[in-house]
């Protein structure tokens, strides 16, 4: 191919331009990070690490000091390091649950919180063993007084439920907000605020110790 020909020079320039456009497009695509969907996964599993067997003998009517074993987990898929907090609240039938529309947390008082800094794509899963250690029943209402969580005892400020029915543990995911330097319920993703929370119901109709094993 002789470069003296004008037609050959033109075709050569055209080939070079096509190749450089292809090569630099590939370079741009490989060096530019792709946007990913930002979210958290928040879950609670039963004693066997499955979404089942949440209560002993599958009976949500608990006795005093009867241990309930769960696993709590959070997966960070936000694309960077995040500081998260799981807040545990004890509620009853009248407790206002978290509201996904207004992004408000539950009205129940906070019992305990678990904090953790999570890397991108990291899952934080830990055992969560709890039991009601002290409760009384008066005037048709069961009052929970103390609750033990992972071998720590927490006082509950006289939380009650009618006839011991419809207590619930509410778990909320709070995330560190870098713009306000505080933890807030939920997280911002693509211009939207999202929340994640869980609740599990239980009863304590007769606050008595569990029957001795036969």
């Amino acid at each position, binding site marked *: 191919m002789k470069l003296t020909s004008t037609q050959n020079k033109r075709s*050569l320039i055209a080939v070079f331009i096509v190749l450089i456009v292809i090569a630099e497009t*590939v370079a741009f695509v490989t060096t530019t990070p792709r946007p990913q969907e930002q979210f958290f996964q928040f879950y609670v599993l039963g004693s066997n690490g499955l979404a089942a067997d949440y209560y002993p003998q599958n009976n949500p009517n608990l006795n005093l000091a009867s241990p309930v074993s769960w696993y709590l987990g959070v997966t960070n898929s936000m694309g*960077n*390091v995040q500081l998260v907090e799981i807040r545990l609240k004890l509620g009853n039938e009248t407790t206002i649950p978290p509201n996904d529309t207004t992004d408000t947390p539950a009205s129940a008082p906070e019992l305990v919180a678990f*904090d953790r800094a999570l890397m991108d794509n990291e899952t934080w899963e830990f055992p969560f063993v709890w039991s009601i250690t002290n409760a009384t029943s008066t005037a048709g209402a069961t009052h929970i007084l103390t609750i033990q969580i992972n071998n720590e005892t927490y006082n509950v400020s006289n939380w009650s439920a009618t006839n011991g029915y419809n207590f619930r543990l509410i778990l909320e995911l709070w995330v560190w907000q870098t713009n306000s330097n505080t933890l807030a319920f939920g997280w911002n993703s693509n211009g939207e*605020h999202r929340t994640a929370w869980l609740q599990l119901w239980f009863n304590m109709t007769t606050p008595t110790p569990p029957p001795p094993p036969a």
Partner: protein
Amino acid sequence: MTRASAWLILTTAILIAVIMISPLYPSAQINQPLQPSFGQAIVAVNNAEAAGATPNETAPLVALLNKALALNQEASSLPPNQTAQGNTILSGVNQILTNVTNQANDLTTTSTQRTSTNKIITYVAGLILAVAGTFAYVFGVELYQRYRIKRTFQMRIKAK
């Protein structure tokens, strides 16, 4: 005058509308004295990641953040009569967070340089490949032309 007051009312109305539309997310007030330090540390780590730091590089910083959280929890669970011990732990937490921020800032600098270098190398490699491809095209066309010429001169005329 009327126009100025109308603008004022309009601006105030827009501001009130923006404030009312913006959801006020409830926030916690835990670790209040340490909140700025935690915030700085996390922002510094996020900046390092955005600059191109790898998970292997940020993992030690995240481990330090978790250590700070654990110590903070320990300080919070102390009885009120152990204020001195609590303050000692909290100053340790502050020190850890300062270290995280400094290390993350250093990591941001090195990651930025590395990312820039990698980008330049990638784009230059693209240019080199384009030039090499063009030469390969010239060489290929020339080879094909030689082949065609050779084939033409190899032709024989056969009498039928």
